[in-house]
């Protein structure tokens, strides 16, 4: 359920929604943090659901004492009215007891009710589970629902992006009955959300990156620049735009959603960010 921060709910009709999926390396969430902090977006509400593990923290995008107050939660919605852009940030994983399906339903019904013109999902998939075709070339892939294809067919053709390949259920075994299937290992609810959106005729695109757990900040820059080449949010690559404090906050925000796995990786990244600064 969407709960607005102010008494009157924001009008999101015609906005483009960008959202991450909790997936390998947290690439989508890192990229979304980067968008929110770069465009200094305003928080307009929360997704209040029993599907996510609760978490709370102070403002990860705070630039001073005046905006440091208040509790920031597991799923929040930010907007930039001028850009007609809405961003959903998800900071904690889905509770795995039969909640993934429900969470997808919550998201799909909210997207439909809000009237977004299109939704772009940023996600990732396990690099080590690529098949032979996927090993060479770009690690980036996309998926679009039929209604999104109608909207952006020309733009996608011009970009020359690679569509996510369907793979055989049992590679190497020739079986006439087995249809190639969409397989996104480590991609969380990506596949389910895509399938649900196809069924609901929602204009939705998924941008995917093959990666592994580790220092995933470069992966976030890769996917955000990939997105930028389509949406033209900025006129230049994101990495050049990011100021030092924003980068630092990005790392802080990253650490926020590592709720189950308080990893040495986070500390490593904080240290790396410090040495970078």
């Amino acid at each position: 359920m969407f709960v607005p921060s102010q008494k009157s709910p924001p009008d999101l009709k015609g906005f483009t929604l960008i959202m991450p999926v909790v997936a390998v390396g947290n690439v989508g969430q890192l990229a979304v943090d980067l968008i929110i902090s770069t465009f200094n977006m305003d928080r307009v509400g929360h997704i209040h659901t029993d599907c996510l593990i609760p978490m709370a923290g102070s403002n990860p995008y705070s630039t001073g004492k005046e905006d440091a107050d208040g509790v920031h939660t597991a799923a929040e919605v930010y907007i930039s009215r001028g850009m007609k852009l809405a961003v959903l940030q998800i900071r904690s994983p889905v509770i795995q007891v039969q909640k993934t399906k429900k969470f997808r339903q919550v998201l799909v019904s909210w997207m439909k009710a809000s009237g977004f013109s299109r939704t772009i999902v940023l996600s990732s998939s396990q690099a080590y589970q690529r098949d032979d075709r996927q090993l060479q070339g770009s690690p980036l892939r996309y998926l679009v629902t039929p209604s999104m294809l109608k909207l952006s067919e020309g733009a996608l053709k011009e970009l020359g992006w690679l569509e996510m390949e369907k793979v055989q259920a049992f590679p190497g075994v020739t079986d006439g009955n087995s249809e190639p299937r969409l397989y996104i290992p480590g991609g969380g609810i990506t596949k389910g959300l895509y399938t649900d959106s196809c069924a609901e005729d929602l204009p939705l695109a998924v941008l995917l990156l093959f990666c592994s757990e580790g220092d995933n900040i470069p992966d976030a820059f890769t996917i955000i620049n990939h997105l930028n080449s389509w949406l033209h949010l900025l006129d230049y690559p994101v990495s050049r735009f990011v100021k030092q404090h924003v980068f630092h906050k990005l790392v802080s925000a990253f650490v926020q959603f590592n709720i189950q796995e308080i990893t040495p990786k986070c500390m490593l990244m904080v240290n790396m960010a410090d040495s970078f600064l």
Partner: protein
Amino acid sequence: MATFFGEVLSVFSRAVEEDEEDEEGEEEEEEDRDILRALEDKRQVRVRWSSPLSPGGGDRPSRCPHLLLAVGHAASRFVSVYLLSRGHWDTVGQVCLWNERTVGSKEAACVLHRDKDNNVLVCPVDCFVAEDQLFQWTEQVMGCVDTTGLQVTVLSDCPAAEYRTAEPLGPAPVLRSLHTSSHKEAPCCPPVEQPNLVTGLPAAVLSFCQLHHISAVLYQCYSDERCPDSSSMEVFRPALTRLAKTLGLDLSPNVDQLRKYISQASVQSNLYI
């Protein structure tokens, strides 16, 4: 995964593998569904109010301007030793739940206490609340309380090793705070700094309060002590000074109870007897 020192750690990914689940879901039999439904029902969090609750009757206690939750061993014992052992308190109800860590088939219960002047509702939570029960627990309890003008205070404790900061915290327990946008009073301690976060029941309650524009503040104690001792309980005292004044209590420990809790902890560590 093997680490640099050779230990083998179990690694799980944060990403949810959904594929298998979906396939299983389609083949799920009626019997499985019944079992899952029964399990879900057993895991429901229920608030049971004692009767008679209030002079006016009804299914909820009369309005209390303060709600105090104490989550964890140190926080709940602090409330028992410093607050509930003083003055007159009525037991008005309990929050019952069952999960995988509940001993035996009997439900775990968090008792709700109310002071005689109906100023504050206190709930020490010493039992384990599972991830899927946190949301329910919060909705159930907050749904029973009149939230108009409500002030929520949450006390909680956490191992000091989990606090990430450039400067070491030191050997003594420390207190950090986090408050909702509606909370206007200055907290008595520094805030929980980035990149630290709050999880569990305190996070669920604070999130609920932030969303519903309720004034709420969390005081989290970071301590190295395995079992709560007098110093890790004492650290909460400044957090409740104002509330204690409202209630007319002096907020000093009940020595007998404190001794009882500390002696319980020392019995467990009998390695060198």
